[in-house]
């Protein structure tokens, strides 16, 4: 079995939750395979990340330098192609960095790419069987791939249960000198922070959240009326923001806000992982959706199969009568 490499995402000296989840995924591929953490960045904080990675992996490759101060996927790809051995199995988080890095990395390493993997089922010989989702989570697929010559695997954040960092006492090896030529046609300029909106949905105890099922901008009213009746705040899924019907600051999800309400009402939301990724602290989820097979019903506590345009106004009316 080839070596497994885990690319450790980190910020301000702290490894992301996804790091230990990927360690768990690596163990599921092959519990015996030697495991190496890739810790890339710049500055004093990097050693702290190496320490955290060393607790979970037998080896840590540290790559530091000014060029890595911001994780520019084009620069990091070049470095990885320079340092990785043949037949490496490389695990990367399927976040906005992993989506930027991995498809191209797989081409440059000339190995297959497995995107957004949610489960690993078996390795038989060099044939790996994994599970993915398609159509926004409506169906799953079992997928096979020969990883004998290596592979790049993007692992969905949150899909694997993090393995305890069990004092692996990994050895840290500084690979910075091997980074090689990093010249590339894309230069990082700056990060522009998201605008702050009029309402802070992250502070709300109860959210009435609407998705594409609301169908029309005018219908948003019915969610606002329900929210007013129960003392909640209105939030939404991404298509509502893309359509410019609500402000970006109202969007729940990985590319929007992370919320932790006590009760979350999902109205006409299908339940994609990017949306659910914004829900923290296991709120009580009530889903109303006209499709009984909508993925949201798999994570919700209570479900109503109905048309929100008819159901919600009736619900509001009953509450107002109380």
């Amino acid at each position, binding site marked *: 079995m080839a070596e497994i490499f885990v690319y450790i995402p980190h910020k301000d000296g702290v490894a992301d939750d996804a790091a230990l989840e990927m360690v768990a995924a690596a163990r599921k591929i092959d519990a015996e395979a030697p495991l190496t953490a890739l810790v890339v960045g710049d500055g004093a904080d990097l050693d702290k990340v190496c320490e955290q990675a060393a607790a979970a992996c037998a080896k840590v490759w540290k790559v530091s330098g000014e060029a890595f101060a911001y994780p520019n996927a084009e620069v990091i790809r070049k470095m990885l192609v320079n340092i990785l051995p043949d037949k490496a199995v490389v695990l990367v988080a399927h976040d906005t960095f992993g*989506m930027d890095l991995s498809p191209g990395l797989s081409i440059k390493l000339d190995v297959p790419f497995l995107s957004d993997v949610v489960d690993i089922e078996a390795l038989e010989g060099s044939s790996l*069987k994994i599970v*993915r989702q398609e*159509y926004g989570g409506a169906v799953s*697929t079992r997928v096979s791939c020969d990883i004998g010559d290596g592979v790049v695997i993007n692992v969905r954040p949150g899909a694997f249960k993090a393995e305890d960092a069990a004092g692996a006492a990994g050895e840290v090896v500084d690979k910075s000198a091997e980074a090689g030529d990093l010249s590339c046609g894309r*230069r990082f300029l700056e990060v522009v922070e998201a605008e702050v909106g009029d309402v802070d949905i992250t502070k709300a105890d109860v959210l009435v959240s609407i998705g594409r099922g609301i169908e029309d901008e005018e219908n948003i009213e019915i969610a606002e009326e329900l929210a007013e009746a129960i003392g*909640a705040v209105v939030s939404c899924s991404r298509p509502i923001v893309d359509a410019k019907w609500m402000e970006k600051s109202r969007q729940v999800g990985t590319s929007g806000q992370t919320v932790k309400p006590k009760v979350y009402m999902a109205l006409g939301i299908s339940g994609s992982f990017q949306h659910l990724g914004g829900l923290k602290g296991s709120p009580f989820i*009530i889903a109303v959706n006209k499709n009984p097979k909508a993925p949201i019903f798999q994570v919700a506590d209570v479900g109503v199969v109905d048309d929100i345009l008819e159901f919600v106004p009736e619900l509001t009316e009953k509450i107002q009568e109380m």
Partner: protein
Amino acid sequence: MDILVCVKRVPDTAENEIEVNSDGTDIERDDLVYSVNEWDNYAVEEALQIRDKVGGSVTVISVGDEESEEVLRREMAMGADGGILLSDDAFEGSDGRGVAAILKAAVEKGNYDLILTGAMADDGAAQVGGMLAAMLDRPFASLVNHIEVVDDKKLKVGREIEGGNQEMNEIDLPCVLSIQTGINEPRYVGIRGIRKVASLEIPVQGAGDLGIDPSTVGEAGAKVRRLEYFVPDLGEGAEILEGSTEEVIEKLIEILKAQGGIK
């Protein structure tokens, strides 16, 4: 600026309930409504806006069967100057890498300054754009939600990153960008617009025209293979409230009260 936009014909998830077929070999394809992949529509709109600002042309391209012509035509009705359909029995069953390889061969037959893809399509892989860029050895940026033409050598692009923050980059032309939804407001295409482009010719190119060895693409060349489709059994799932609407509402109000959902 000559821009190529890669578009895919996909089942419209807003119009269909996607289900697994009886033997788990595919989704149920009977009576599916198809449309252009949502992300690709934003990519085409962005290309049109750039062209209208700095001049040049927009070509839309798709790998698919003859039905994919309808999405090419739709995007031409939006304003694209031309379309190319890449179609061959040998292309069927391609994995992401195969699709990227087919597109690469077509790109090399043209002379494009900028290539746009959508960030992701129906199978959620988000891979073709990055693969195509690497095959062409051109700079790439994914999840682009802002494009500014600096001059004929470079662009300033914003990438959407976690939390709705935006990462600004400078990128050299020619390059490949994958476009995120919300970057613009795609224009509406009416039936009249479609009629206007109905008679325009859309050339079809196959493996032979593109100089592609059929064994490297399609089913034959795929390294990543779907074994089956299934619906996962994720524990208990929601308690579905049953009864008349009135009864459901009554139950729901009780639950809301119990959970602190009504103030």
